[in-house]
């Protein structure tokens, strides 16, 4: 069974440019999460979806970040425009049911803003 798939694995962009990350969760998982992991830190939740509805986006910087999960399956996270401080690993995870079940993580996208 395929795990959580993210692309691209690595992305280098200049500041002020837009960037997008894509995530395909495990088949049948209704809950999808986007996390940001800064160097030397633990992951921090950006947004959580239950099917196509964003149920927790309190940590998403909405002035420049946006996300969508139109059909309740795969998801896209966008940053526009990117800033130097956005350099981090962006992790996608999915789970079936409530959060206290196991969340499966993708390999992440490492973003470098120069």
């Amino acid at each position, binding site marked *: 069974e395929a795990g*959580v798939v993210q692309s691209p694995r690595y992305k280098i962009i200049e500041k002020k440019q837009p960037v997008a990350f894509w995530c395909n969760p495990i088949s049948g998982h209704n809950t999808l*999460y986007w996390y940001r992991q800064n160097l*030397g*830190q*633990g*992951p*921090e*939740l950006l947004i*959580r979806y239950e099917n196509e509805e964003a149920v*927790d986006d*309190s940590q998403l910087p909405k002035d420049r970040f946006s996300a969508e999960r139109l059909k309740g399956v795969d998801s896209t996270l966008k940053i526009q425009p990117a800033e130097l401080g956005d350099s981090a690993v962006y*992790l996608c*995870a999915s789970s079936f049911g*409530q*959060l*206290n079940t*196991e*969340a*499966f*993580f*993708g*390999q*992440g996208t*490492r973003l470098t803003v120069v």
Partner: protein
Amino acid sequence: AQSVTQLDSQVPVFEEAPVELRCNYSSSVSVYLFWYVQYPNQGLQLLLKYLSGSTLVKGINGFEAEFNKSQTSFHLRKPSVHISDTAEYFCAVTWGGATNKLIFGTGTLLAVQP
């Protein structure tokens, strides 16, 4: 605010020696506890979880953890480590309720030396 503390940023240990990685959290009310491992350039993989029941939880790769409600701790242990256990280990907690947000500690690098 709810928080997770991993006091040790790095734990060096010799191969075949025992190890304990410490984790403390801020409140025991409706708490669910997890340990994840992250190998270089990889996503997070669940080692074990405590949802309810026995306070001693066994996970994959010979790891175990004990939920201690009075000390608000969930320390991870392994009686004999291998070189292949070298990785970053994250403690994570979710508290029941409307937000159901998974909060991670800052991680502990387990460095196993021959």
